[in-house]
């Protein structure tokens, strides 16, 4: 009876400890060393047991526990990786010109290239509209019935998708922006302003 109790306890502890190690490896921003894990589970033998058990647990999963030079990390399994064509993509911030242009199109659509230039006060470099078009966030609208019949630009459905909007009317208007402080950048945004009232 007491033996059983002890066994139960042991199992409970083992599972819990394994869960902790699992969570730590998962949340670590780089492969974690055996040494670092020893700080949590000082018992060497037990730690090794836990790691082996974790390795087994993931052996036929989409992710595996990888051992690299005595460090541990979860990585997509080779089988799946092959299938999914994994590539490291480093997210890139959109250039200032492109973000401004996109915002202007969103708020003023349909709008021609020269109207955008008017609002921004600088001429639009060639690649800016191209990039936004390539990202499928903008698309050509109708042509203006003015001399030269300039093309207008409007935002697309994937623009709405990307920004989580149901319709363009959900964009906060100028008054909303004023009320939320967004129009007073110098006071509110992009400095470590004190947000206390």
């Amino acid at each position: 009876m007491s033996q059983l109790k002890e066994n139960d306890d042991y199992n409970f502890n083992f599972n819990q400890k394994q869960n902790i190690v699992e969570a730590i490896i998962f949340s670590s921003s780089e492969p974690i060393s055996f040494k670092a894990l020893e700080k949590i589970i000082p018992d060497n033998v037990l730690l090794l047991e836990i790691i082996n058990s974790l390795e087994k647990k993931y052996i036929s999963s989409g992710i595996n526990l990888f051992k690299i030079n005595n460090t541990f990390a979860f990585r997509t399994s080779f089988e799946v990786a092959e299938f999914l064509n994994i590539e490291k993509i480093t997210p890139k911030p959109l250039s200032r010109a492109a973000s401004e242009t996109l915002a202007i199109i969103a708020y003023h659509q349909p709008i021609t290239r020269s109207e955008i230039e008017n609002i921004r006060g600088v001429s639009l470099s060639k690649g800016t509209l191209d990039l936004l078009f390539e990202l499928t966030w903008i698309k050509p609208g109708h042509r203006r019935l003015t001399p030269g019949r300039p093309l207008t630009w409007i935002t697309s459905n994937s623009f709405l998708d990307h920004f989580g909007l149901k319709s363009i009317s959900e964009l906060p208007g100028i008054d909303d922006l004023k009320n939320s402080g967004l129009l007073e950048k110098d006071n509110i945004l992009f400095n470590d302003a004190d947000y206390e009232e």
Partner: protein
Amino acid sequence: MSKENDYNSNIINSNIFNLNLNGFEGPIDLLLNLARDHKIDLTKLSILPLAEQYLLFLDTVLKKDIDIAAEYLVMGAWLAFLKSKLLLPTDNSDISDELNDMSDLLEFQLKRLEAMQTASRLLLDSFQLGVHFFKRGDPENFNINQKIEYNINLFDLISVYGQIFSKESSQILTIASSKLYSVEEALERLSNLIKTSSGWRNLFDYLPDNIKDMLEQRSAIASHFVASLELVKEGKLILRQDGDDNQIYLSLKS
């Protein structure tokens, strides 16, 4: 301290008096604090003592010469009105209905704000991502569904837009660019011209003659003079000036 204690002494002993209005998020918040401080039951709210406390508090704060926000005064006026109505015995059922409605509304507002304050504490006391639970620390990226590698969210987009407008409305001093004759330009021009010249010649003869703008003209004189000094330094030119206010002559160094 017994319940029958005079409200006034109660209030004066209260900690709230050490605070000023800045400690409160508006009149309802203040009322709620007063109610809590004096253990007034919100479910069977008696307006009169609460109104008295509020007015007394306001009075004290005013005496301390503190600017009182309009919303506190509006609430104060409203409570004073309510108090006077409550103190007058009335048989008019319309008025008592109205009073009931008003106190119901106040009770509702107090309870609702209290509920929201509790909710915000519950929310912020619950598990939070990055504090109590974690996301994948070292994400891998797949080349699927991720055609877009640019990260910009709605907030970024809107603040960028906001900035365009604040740029427009704010007075930014821009210095109009003026056409000036640069030293580099003058140096290139002068070194070309002197190659074909012989003997002493006035520096002014070398100035460009198509400049109409006065400022540009003066900048051309200055830059050509600096350029001539540079050429002297390089050992290509000799300068001569016979006295302080006389013309400057230059000649190729042979």
